[in-house]
């Protein structure tokens, strides 16, 4: 576990020292939602049904914006090679990087998202559910994203391919997360869509590190 905490600390330290990485996704997230509000003239009751989807689409896009950072700089300065030839399990290193990416981007979105949801007209109770979906859903984005980044990090311009590769995989998260909030607003039990989200979280966190580390080995060679 020593290596896990070391890499986690290293990535967080780098993020704090290079603040753009920290602020950019967050700012982007807030701006998308504010722009939505400015551009729409929807009635409050319509806006409430749209709110969860708007917040979640913004969360997806801000995650996508920051994903490339996960391995790119390590690839460019050779740190990734050192990780791969080390005898430490690469999957553990990748897991540390996934968690670090989530803390840097997902956690901020999770904390700010409910406030923006309220701005879009969600009730206090509904924002609590929105908070829960963000808490469970954003780590999934970091986990799935890590596979996409690991596959494209060896390419010089991997950005477009990364979006094409990763966005379809984000769709289930988007559907079930916004559905959870809508179900709650409609007055039904959220147990079913929420369980599926939790299942997705466990599934992606347990498999993504292996898939991403295999992809990294290919990208580095």
């Amino acid at each position, binding site marked *: 576990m*020593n290596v896990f905490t070391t890499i986690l600390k290293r990535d967080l*330290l*780098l993020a704090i020292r*290079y603040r753009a990485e920290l602020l950019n996704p967050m700012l982007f997230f807030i701006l998308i939602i504010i722009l939505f509000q400015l551009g729409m003239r929807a009635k409050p009751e319509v806006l409430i049904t749209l709110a969860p989807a708007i917040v979640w689409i913004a969360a997806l896009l801000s995650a996508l914006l920051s994903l490339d950072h996960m391995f790119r700089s390590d690839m*460019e300065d050779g740190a990734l*090679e*050192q990780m*791969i*030839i080390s005898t*430490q399990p690469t999957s553990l290193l990748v897991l540390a990087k996934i968690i670090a990416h989530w803390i840097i981007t997902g956690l901020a979105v999770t904390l700010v998202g409910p406030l923006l949801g309220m701005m879009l007209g969600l009730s206090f109770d509904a924002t609590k559910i929105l908070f829960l979906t963000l808490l469970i859903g954003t780590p999934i984005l970091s986990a799935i994203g890590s596979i996409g980044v690991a596959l494209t990090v060896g390419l010089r311009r991997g950005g477009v391919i990364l979006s094409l590769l990763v966005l379809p995989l984000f769709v289930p998260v988007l559907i079930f997360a916004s559905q959870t909030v809508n179900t709650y607003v409609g007055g039904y039990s959220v147990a079913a869509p929420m369980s599926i989200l939790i299942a997705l979280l466990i599934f992606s966190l347990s498999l993504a590190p292996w898939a991403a580390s295999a992809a990294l080995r290919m990208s580095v060679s």
Partner: protein
Amino acid sequence: MDQAQPAYSHTNILSAEKLSSEKQDRWLFKDISFTIEPGHIFHIKGANGSGKTTLLRILCGLTVAESGEVLWGDKTIRRQHDQYHTQLSYVGHTDGIKQDLTVEENLRVAAVLAQGKQQPPISFNLADILRRIGLAKKKYTFAHALSAGQRRRLALARCLLNDTSIWILDEPLTALDAQGVGLVEDLINMHIQRKGIAIITSHQALNISDAHYKVLSLS
């Protein structure tokens, strides 16, 4: 100066059997074989683009050769990934140093990566290593504030962390001043006296006295 240290506990013969590699439909090298015994230095020479770095990466196990095998002892390195990599230090032409970390932080991360799975955590004397590479006063300096030569020294310091018996160094003398070159030569000399293997690429000749020196020219 460093006092004599005991020989490495794990040394073995490193050999390549008929390695071939191609890049964009052109053979970089074809069917090259060589054997490096413990206590030898292997100097790979060649023009730019002749495949020196590719060969080093194959020897590290980072890149797979089109054909051929790298053997450590009598087994291929692919079959003994962990044992081989606990004995290996690689300093590539990208140095693996994070600009936004200090010298000390960079070395601490490298130390954790270098330590093998089975071993107890390696203990190393950071002050001693920094003194040996001539960065004693730079412990808390950010890597981006170092000069190119100092960064090179920091990268080379990784070799000293974990008592590895195989050093693979890609252009270790780039950007180093005369004193730095002397320092690298001293380190390699000591490494070879301890029955280690050093594989380097360099356009400069190394002034290494009694080492068993082998040169491979890639054309």
